[in-house]
């Protein structure tokens, strides 16, 4: 259980977080927001790496400032860039992290994780020869060492090819259960597939928190779709401005989804992406 109460974090004049109140329970929790919204700052605070300017955060009752070690003992963390040691092999790197996590006799766990993430065949190769996808898989493997109660993953699918991304999401979905998994991303589809609950961060504040389908329902009946001929696209999009959510090619032009009622448009059931964009732009 992660609990944040009125968390703020300031970097000089920049207010990265402004009074965040959040409760995250077991299961996969999505932390969604545009770049610069404060997701990584929040994750770092929970990972005990960054003290908040004010407010209080606890992980399973342990304060992130005063009880760093107990939190770290139950933590698995995959940051955006984790810098695996290039001169070690994949297996050696996992062994190294296992030692730092205080895991005794990690060999079986390492074998299992290597197998789970399809890294067994390359386990003896130096990390420097790994592809981006392999590195991400190795990263999540190191995060899972020690079977952590809390797993924080920050932008995990960046740099992955579509197949790997799908595989990764499926894997995340299977991780829930008793474990608290926080998936921080700006990719709505990751959250849509893997998370039951989410919070949307916007300029350091919580814009929404609750069930994933709840965010969709929030904008039920408020999203309209209209098909416009190609030659009118530029003028219309410019006129509608921030209300435009998504566009895609239609049969006779461009299908545009817009927030709010629009002439000629028909109400549609919003996707999570529509709802997220609507929330961010509203």
């Amino acid at each position, binding site marked *: 259980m992660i609990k944040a109460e009125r968390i703020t974090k300031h970097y000089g004049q920049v207010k990265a977080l402004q009074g965040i109140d959040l409760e995250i329970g077991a299961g996969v929790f999505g932390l969604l927001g545009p770049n610069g919204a404060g997701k990584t700052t929040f994750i770092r605070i929970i990972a005990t790496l960054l003290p908040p300017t004010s407010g209080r955060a606890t992980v399973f009752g342990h304060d992130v400032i005063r009880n*760093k070690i107990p939190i770290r003992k139950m933590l698995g963390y995959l940051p955006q860039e984790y*810098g695996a*040691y290039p*001169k*070690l092999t994949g297996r050696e790197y996992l062994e190294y992290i296992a*030692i*730092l996590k205080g895991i005794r006799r990690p060999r079986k766990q390492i074998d299992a994780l290597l197998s789970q993430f399809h890294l067994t065949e390359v386990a003896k190769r130096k990390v420097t020869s790994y592809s981006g996808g392999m590195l991400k898989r190795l990263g999540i493997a*190191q995060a899972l060492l020690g079977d952590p109660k809390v797993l924080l993953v920050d932008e995990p699918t960046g740099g992955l090819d579509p197949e790997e991304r799908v595989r990764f999401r499926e894997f995340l979905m299977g991780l829930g259960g008793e474990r608290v998994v926080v998936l921080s991303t700006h990719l709505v589809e990751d959250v849509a597939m893997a998370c039951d609950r989410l919070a949307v961060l916007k300029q350091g504040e919580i814009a929404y928190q609750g069930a994933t389908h709840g965010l969709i329902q929030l904008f039920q009946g408020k999203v309209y779709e209209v098909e416009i001929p190609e030659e009118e696209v530029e003028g219309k999009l410019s006129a509608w401005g921030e209300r435009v959510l998504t566009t895609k090619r239609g049969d006779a032009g461009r299908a545009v989804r817009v927030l709010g009622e629009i002439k000629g448009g028909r109400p549609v059931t919003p996707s999570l992406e529509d709802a997220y964009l609507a929330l961010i732009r509203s």
Partner: protein
Amino acid sequence: MGRMVWLEIKRLLRQPTWWIFAVLIILVVDGQEPTVSDFSLEPLSDFMIGLSVIGRSPLASLGEWGRLVLFLVGGLSSVLVNLLISFLVTYSFHPELVHREVLWSTPEVGKVHSVGAKLLAVSFVAIFSVILGACAAFLHPSTWGVLVLVGGSLIPIYLVFAFVHVILWAAICMFLLFLTQSRRSTIGLIALFTIGHWFLSSFAVSKLPWTFVKLFYQSYRAYYCLSPFTPFGVLPTAFLLRGVIELGLAVAVFGAASWLRGHYPEWKGVGTTAAKALLGFGIILVVGGAGMSLWETNRNIAPFELWQLWLGKVEFGRPYIWTRDGRLLTYLGRYMVLRLPPSADIPAWAQALAQCKQVNRYQVGTLTGKGESSGDKRSGPPNPAEAIIGASQDLILVYPRGQTYPPELEGMVRRFRRQIQPMLKRAAIWQREDPSIFVLGAYDFLGAYNVYSIPEGLLLAAFVMSDTFRASSKWWDVAWALTASSGLNELLRCYLSLYLMEALDKGEVERASAWLQDEAKGKSLQEEEEALARLDEQGEVVLGPSCPSRGGLCECAWLNPQAAQRILEHWRRGEELGHENYIRMLLEGAER
């Protein structure tokens, strides 16, 4: 922790930096092989310890190789070794500084033992590079002829001391890295510190006016006094305490580095008790070790000056190593040497130490002006410390029975014998059998010459057997010593020296003759110096007004043009009659 050390070592070994440094160290070793006397390369050691300053020489024993390792981490080459250490430390900790999140979110990363694992890994790789570099000395052709497999049992001790030294510098690097959080700054500061340390120890300390500080520092840098004669230094306690001091410093600096690291934002609030405990423990070791070392050094400095002993004003009541004015009195150990006024009784403590050993007493050499006087050097009445310069001395040599030099020098002595064989053949005219060789570690005891004739053979300073000591000056000393048993006067001995020298180097004899001719003409001092400078430019010249290693030849000739003339006349007669015939005539004349 062991597994982590091993993983770190793998990481470091896969990094090309250490290869580069290992190769550089090999190059350093190649240009600077060890000998007894190489351990005195720094001017500090020239200060009263009595070891000579010379260059390259072959590796003579396994013990010598162990000392080479110590020398590599402590001498001028330490600049290279410390740079290697700083590269390794910064490489090892680099991920923590750049991609710190994964590492710092683990519970163990900030703990002392995981930092210690990196410290040990870096130290192992650095010492491995040094050992690899030192092994290059075995490959040098000059080594093959003289190397003996003696002294191997000392190697583990030397390696431990070298390792402690490396750990200390690795800890300093870590401290600087955590302080600056910059690789470049750390490496730059380490280079500055090392050069500064070398400068201080080489120049600044030796210029200090206080003998005690110098002797203490010299004891601290005891590895410069290590030799086959005293494998743990002239003051073994100081050598061992130096290890304690360095270990204490390493622990303290490591504790301070860990404490500093505990102030990183990621580790704030976790507590740094272990780091503080290490810091405290290290300080205790340093203070304790330094205190005991100071006490031990002070205990070995006599409360009197050399002149007081020579004038019989004080008693040599216990084994003091130095006089208060910094003159070396005794060189304790298996091969003990003791300097005494002529005919003075051997102190009871020395007799006790000499039990079951062979004790020889020789009147060899005179007191030189080397060393420092604490007396008043201003104008006024003669300073008694200066007044005794030139006074004769007795050397008490204490050897294990039948061993006139340490077994580690066996190969060197064999080679020396081979080298002087042509001289020995010529000297057979007046000398019945090959002389025994007696070797002294500290040449300070020997006075003006490096080789002396004693009833049983030749007494020589160990460095005379090395390669790079200017060959001709070495051979003049040997020649002069070999003529002593002829029983002829000094002028004739000069002639005999020329004859012996001709067996080794005819060119040297030609140059010496030219010089003697100049002497005989009574040239002015300025003309002399110009002539010498010209000869010096030609290379091999050793004859000169300030050269102490010219055997008796110059000594006779320099002071007296007539003497030079007479030496030349003897040489001409020898040429005319055949030297062997002429020398036999001279010897018969002497007998009559």
